[in-house]
């Protein structure tokens, strides 16, 4: 019974129930509205105008509107298109958006795939760190020819993440240790292993007394795909391929069918002759491997060297992306792009308008909050229930054999 009502299962339920596209768009709209309120409250001129609201209410609205408009306009300019740019710089906002989106898509796929098998993988952080350590090590320790060097580093990264995730899956299958606990603990292990390694000679950049690793050699780097001026690298291609692979796995393959069955109802899966324990290990290997690719994208593409904050919060943002994307592959791509755009626009918005960076974090959080509470969105927009009566009544009516 505990397997059916665990957090993974409950989150999965909530995700499957809501009608995704409409609900997600409305949640986003609500989150932007909440963000607008915060921008108004944070804006000094508007606050001053509020001081004399009664004598001249128009000022408050004009200034508030201006603050919100310029804030969101800057967000758009930073993330999508800036009319002030020319030449290749026109593509800079999009490049930044896609660059940010790459690890988020991969991380979202990692969390989402595990969700589908009923496991809540909180350990993307640890798995991506292990992936980055392995990929980075292969990348700077061996001098390999082009292509081979990159493939070897990628393989090492995937393996590092897969093993780290697989251990949590194996613990769950073998001993029943809950993956939420074990992956959190393994996050710490990976984090401290990384800070230890960053002080070890041979791993640490030579001649540096800072916690930074040696640089990945040229042959192991993910090539930039929009020319040398834009930072976007081939990690995006890997992310898209991974998304297609995940989609195929979950909706078209026999393995995916058994994983989904295990996630939706482990008792029925067992009764139908599926090996639930093996499924747990398999999906955690896959999930960890995808998280390892996040590490690859960061250390082979974006940064070229390991630092203590290689994770940069990606491990936990991946959970948000998976939730927003409703644990589907396509959803992870769209949610990754959205959050990637937020991340890129955020920088410009702060620089140009003085709107605090926290606003974007709040918007991201509020989107997911609304998605997790579909009843709230339904009542705001007066949408009908997706099926049956209100949840409470539906629950009650079950007692009545119907």
């Amino acid at each position, binding site marked *: 019974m505990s397997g059916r009502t665990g957090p993974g299962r409950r989150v999965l339920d909530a995700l499957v129930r809501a009608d995704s596209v409409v609900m997600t768009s409305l949640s986003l709209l609500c989150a932007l509205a909440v963000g607008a309120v915060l921008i108004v409250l944070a804006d000094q001129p508007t606050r001053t105008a509020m001081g004399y609201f009664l004598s001249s209410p128009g000022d408050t609205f004009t200034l508030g509107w201006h603050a919100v408009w310029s804030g969101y306009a800057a967000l758009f300019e930073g993330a999508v298109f800036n009319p002030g740019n020319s030449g290749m710089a026109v593509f800079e906002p999009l490049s930044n958006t896609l660059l940010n989106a790459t690890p988020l898509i991969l991380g979202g796929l990692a969390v989402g795939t595990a969700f589908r098998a009923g496991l809540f993988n909180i350990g993307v952080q640890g798995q991506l760190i292990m992936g980055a350590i392995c990929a980075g090590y292969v990348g700077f320790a061996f001098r390999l020819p082009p292509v081979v060097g990159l493939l070897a580093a990628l393989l090492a990264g995937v393996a590092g993440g897969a093993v780290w995730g697989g251990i949590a899956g194996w613990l769950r299958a073998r001993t029943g240790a809950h993956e939420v606990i074990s992956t959190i603990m393994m996050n710490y292990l990976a984090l401290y292993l990384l800070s230890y390694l960053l002080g070890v000679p041979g791993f640490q950049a030579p001649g540096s007394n800072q916690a930074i690793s040696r640089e990945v050699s040229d042959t192991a780097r993910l090539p930039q795909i929009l020319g040398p001026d834009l930072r976007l690298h081939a990690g995006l291609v890997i992310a898209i391929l991974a998304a297609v692979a995940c989609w195929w796995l979950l909706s078209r393959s*026999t393995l995916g*069918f058994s994983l989904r069955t295990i996630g*939706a109802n482990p008792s*029925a899966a067992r009764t139908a002759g599926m*090996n639930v324990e093996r499924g747990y290990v398999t999906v955690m290997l896959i999930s960890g491997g995808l998280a390892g690719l996040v590490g690859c994208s960061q250390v082979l593409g974006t940064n070229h060297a390991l630092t203590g904050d290689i994770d940069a919060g990606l491990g936990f943002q991946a959970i948000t992306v998976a939730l927003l994307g409703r644990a589907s592959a396509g959803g992870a791509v769209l949610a990754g792009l959205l959050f990637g755009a937020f991340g890129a626009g955020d920088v410009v918005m702060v620089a140009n308008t003085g709107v605090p960076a926290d606003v974007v974090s709040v918007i991201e959080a509020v989107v997911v909050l609304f998605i997790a509470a579909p009843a709230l969105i339904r009542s705001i927009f007066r949408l009908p229930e997706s099926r049956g009566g209100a949840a409470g*009544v539906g629950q009650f009516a079950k*007692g*009545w*054999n119907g």
Partner: protein
Amino acid sequence: MKLELRTITKRFGSVTANDRIDLVVEPGEIHALLGENGAGKSTLMNILYGLHRPDEGQILIDDAPVSFGGPGDAKAAGIGMVHQHFMLVPVFTVTENVMLGHEPTKGLAFLDRRRARRRVTEISHRFGLEVPPDAVVADLSVGVRQRVEILKALSHDARLLVLDEPTAVLSPQETEQLINVIRTLRDAGTSIVFISHKLREVCRIADRITVIRRGAVVGTADPSASEGELASMMVGRPVRLTVDKVPAEPGEVVLDVRGLSLVGDDGVVLVDDLTFSVRGGEIFAIAGVQGNGQTEVTEALVGLVKPTTGSISVAGRDLGPLSTGEILDLGVGYVPEDRLRDGLVGDFSVAENLVLDLYDKPPFARSGALDLARIEADATARVREFDIRPPETTRAAGTLSGGNQQKIVLARELSRPLKLLIIAQPTRGLDVGSMEFVHRRIVAERDRGTAVVLVSTELDEVLGLADRMVVMYRGRIAGEVPAGAPAERIGLLMAGSAPDDQAAVPPGDVASAGVR
């Protein structure tokens, strides 16, 4: 209390769940509400309990119109409900559960347990509802828990008690006790609405019977009406209550169980030294009250639990080292007793559920990829063959009625060549129409030469289907009974008292009797 429902109509969108329903429950009357699943009984009772508002019609209590905004109003008006799934807090004592929601207090905020306990004892004596007031609910048997539920309703001064499928979870003995309690309550002036699909019970206990079909009252009947009449009223066409079958033609031994014992994690012996064999072309029934080891036996037969000692073989192949998947591949079909938990994935479509244990085999899969077109085509064919309604293969299985869910499980398990079919509680929660269908399919499978192991707590079902039967009691075979033995004798074996006559073979001889 006199309850009158007048032309109650309730629509959900285009669906009319209740269509001008009239119902009168006289004071001190046991009124049975009979109807198939989905006939509208639940909607009607939810209206009565204030959970839904009727679109038309009114509710009268003692000839005065009332209007309920919620269950609180209904309770205050003297309506009590005992739900099919108990609403008790397992870790609380009986007293605590009964006083929950209207706790007597002393001083500012201290619970007055003594007063609550006194009240529990007083009500339980008045109505002959024996309960241990200080026992923790989790430790009580199902029958006693139900009494606690009734007590809870009575402690709110309920003058009309609604019982929803109250006997579904009870043993024959517990059912007897419940019937006595209900009669005592009636004699004390309480009105009773008794919802059930068990015709025999309804005829025994009810003073009046109202039959509902497709949201409308199709008629009222006297308890003297025959079961056949009631069944055809309920279903809307003549129904055969007995199972048509020719005598079995047993073939080779397919299933051979020797000295099977299962010990639970806590050291409790669940199954104790069971030996029996089943031949192809016969239905071997294991009767018994729920919880006497039958569930564990079926789980052991398909490898979901490993025997502590003993051996099981199917067609000469020892199951010991095999996984559940491998056992199913030998040609073993399994219909688990809890279909929503073990037999189906509620969120999956009908089509996906129809291949739940075949998804990775040809023709549904090729080198690791699902053949969605084949799965869909197969599903369409099965839905037609088994008359699964609504006939939509993409619909989530969890939204179908119990009978149609069971048809999905049956359709899946019977869609491949079987040597052995293990089927547990095949008609639990099903209406008469589906029941008839399921029974016919089981007999048809037997006639194809499949060995069938039927586990059921329903006496009628066992008597109607079995070619041979044993009764399990406390993990042991209490006796083997020949087909056609009187129901009372089996009832006694189920209750654990071995009768003196020769109808029952002593446990030691079951093995020889089984091989014949």
